[in-house]
């Protein structure tokens, strides 16, 4: 074991002023700018969730009015979906890791990368303005004709904010696609790439192909609201179901924009945590692409009770079941990787275990919803809320936190407090399940979503859920504290504290601005773990 020192020159000490950050073209610094942004919006969305769960602790609507409650769940959804869940892993971990993992000095378009961040911030400020100046009450789904005709709240500023932020997604996706195609180091073939890159690539394809559709759809909403066109308003010849087709054509694949990168993270965590190659590498890689493609064919399952034709519903139902195949390939392959592996119990692996369990529950309940008969029964109930939170929170956030803990030593050069990290991972897992599992039950029993009052017989399950949310909130705050603390006081990490393989672990922690002192030549496959890899933790 050798003495560990910080490298004399790295991306964090390459300029200290505000300008050096706000005008940076270094993908690693831009990743940290995004980290600040997504964390800010996560806590705003989280504050809304706290108020929602406080209101639902008692059956009558006694904390906020029904109008305020409508605004709370709308802004919770808008902030979390568009400004946290969709950008979080690609923009933070993807930005930091994509060039390093392929052995490049930066993304293909560094200036466009910085532009993406500014666009994200401007879009976020528009939406924040909508929130502060009176809020929005349409639900994050902006369903018409309510959003175009009836709502008296800030539809236009919020819609504009989402429209603007969409360009950030498109540009980031484009940057990743071009970078992965054109800038791989010598010897880094497609099938030597880490699986995180395959999932990031698949996500980028969805971003580029799907995001323009939601952008145009939101513009149509704005146009109908301002100029009273008849796109969606049946009173003037429009069709509200047309809005739902256009909205869900993007917004269902958006679920995979959220969860595919988390799956990529979990592949990295499982390989490193088990000291083994991922079982069935090419199946896991192609499963990412299959999910990206199939994800575009299933949106109609959101509309089974919305007036969609029965025959169309039948097609969408069958197609929805198909998504289970590549999803299951991944889960089975991770499990097979762990089989007879030297399984680790360090913090990143705890999140990986959490992801696999919670994603499995979320995915299997998704099969319930692909079945038209069950879906009709539970549509717009808390069963749906529980299902998509298991995927989007249990999946995406567990993957994100696992990845953040795994690569934090690389990003900061320092180690965090492992005991506190394990504790918070446990708290988050328990808090998450206590929050959302009762919602499956209360939803199945018939409690509808989006109401601030409910019959007293549902109170026990709602109190359990609110109690879980408070535990979950504490679990999210603890990493904030020890990660910040580690920036100054954490032990030095060294270049490869996990003893992992992959190009990112061959450069210093933190890496130099140009990532590698010389361009690496790759002569090995992904996850080629020797019998034992020496770590260099101090």
């Amino acid at each position, binding site marked *: 074991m050798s003495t560990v020192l910080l490298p004399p020159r790295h991306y964090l000490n390459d300029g200290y002023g505000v300008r050096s950050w706000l005008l940076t073209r270094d993908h690693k610094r831009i990743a940290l700018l995004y980290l600040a942004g997504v964390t800010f919006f996560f806590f705003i969305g989280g504050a809304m969730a706290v108020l929602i769960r406080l209101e639902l602790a008692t059956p009558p609507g006694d904390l906020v009015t029904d109008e305020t409650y409508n605004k709370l769940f709308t802004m919770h959804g808008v902030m979390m979906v568009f400004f946290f869940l969709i950008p979080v892993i690609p923009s933070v971990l993807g930005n930091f890791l994509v060039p390093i993992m392929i052995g490049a000095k930066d993304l293909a378009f560094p200036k466009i990368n910085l532009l993406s961040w500014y666009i994200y911030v401007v879009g976020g400020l528009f939406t924040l303005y909508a929130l502060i100046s009176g809020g929005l009450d349409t639900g994050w789904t902006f369903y018409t004709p309510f959003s175009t005709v009836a709502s008296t709240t800030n539809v236009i500023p919020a819609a504009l904010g989402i429209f603007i932020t969409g360009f950030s997604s498109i540009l980031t996706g484009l940057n990743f696609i071009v970078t992965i195609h054109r800038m791989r180091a010598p010897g880094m073939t497609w099938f030597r790439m880490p699986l995180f890159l395959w999932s990031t690539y698949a996500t980028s394809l969805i971003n580029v*192909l799907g995001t323009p559709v939601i952008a145009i759809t939101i513009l149509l909403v704005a146009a109908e609201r301002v100029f009273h066109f008849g796109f969606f308003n049946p009173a003037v010849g429009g069709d509200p*179901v047309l809005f739902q*087709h*256009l909205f869900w054509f993007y917004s269902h694949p958006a679920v995979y924009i959220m969860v595919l990168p988390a799956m990529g993270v979990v592949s990295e965590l499982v390989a490193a945590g088990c000291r083994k190659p991922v079982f069935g590498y090419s199946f896991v890689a192609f499963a990412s692409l299959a999910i990206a493609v199939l994800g575009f064919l299933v949106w*109609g399952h959101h509309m089974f009770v919305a007036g969609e034709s*029965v*025959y169309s519903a039948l097609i969408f139902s069958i197609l929805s079941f198909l998504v289970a195949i590549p999803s299951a390939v991944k889960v089975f392959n991770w499990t097979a990787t762990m089989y007879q592996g030297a399984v680790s119990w360090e913090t990143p692996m705890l999140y990986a275990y959490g992801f696999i369990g919670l994603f499995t529950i979320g995915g299997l309940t998704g099969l319930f919803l692909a079945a038209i008969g069950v879906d009709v029964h539970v549509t717009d109930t808390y069963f749906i809320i529980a299902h998509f939170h298991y995927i989007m929170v249990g999946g995406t956030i567990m993957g994100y936190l696992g990845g953040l803990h795994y690569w934090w030593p690389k990003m900061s050069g320092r180690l965090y407090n492992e005991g506190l990290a394990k504790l918070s991972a446990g708290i988050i897992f328990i808090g998450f399940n206590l929050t959302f599992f009762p919602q499956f039950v209360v939803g199945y029993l018939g409690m509808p979503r989006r109401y601030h009052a409910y019959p007293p017989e549902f109170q026990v399950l709602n109190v359990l859920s609110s109690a879980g949310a408070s535990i979950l909130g504490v679990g999210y705050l603890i990493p904030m504290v020890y990660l910040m603390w580690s920036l100054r006081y954490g032990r030095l990490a060294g270049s490869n504290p996990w003893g992992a393989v992959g190009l990112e672990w061959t450069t210093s922690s933190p890496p130099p601005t140009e990532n590698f002192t010389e361009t690496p030549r790759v002569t090995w496959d992904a996850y080629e773990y020797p019998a034992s890899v020496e770590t260099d933790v101090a």
Partner: protein
Amino acid sequence: MPTNHILPTRVYYTIFAILMLCTFATVLIAFFDLGPLNAIAALTIAVFKAVLVVLFFMHVRYSTRLTWAVVAGGVFWLGILLALTLSDYLTRSWQTFG
């Protein structure tokens, strides 16, 4: 195939003139009731205009096969959107049993 193809400006002016003519044609046709052909006529002209923009203004005609593949991918995805949406609209009036 060259990727930095430079076109003479008269090509752009010609395409622009054709686009304007097509716009004029769209407005003109709107004054005649063609029955079920109303939408078809307007959409045909619109698609023709879009193809001109993609081929000449966006230089796809002179681009690599990879660029063609990207364009084809975009069109295919638009096809998915239209086909599955129409699977709803075209079958709403079909008889159901039970």
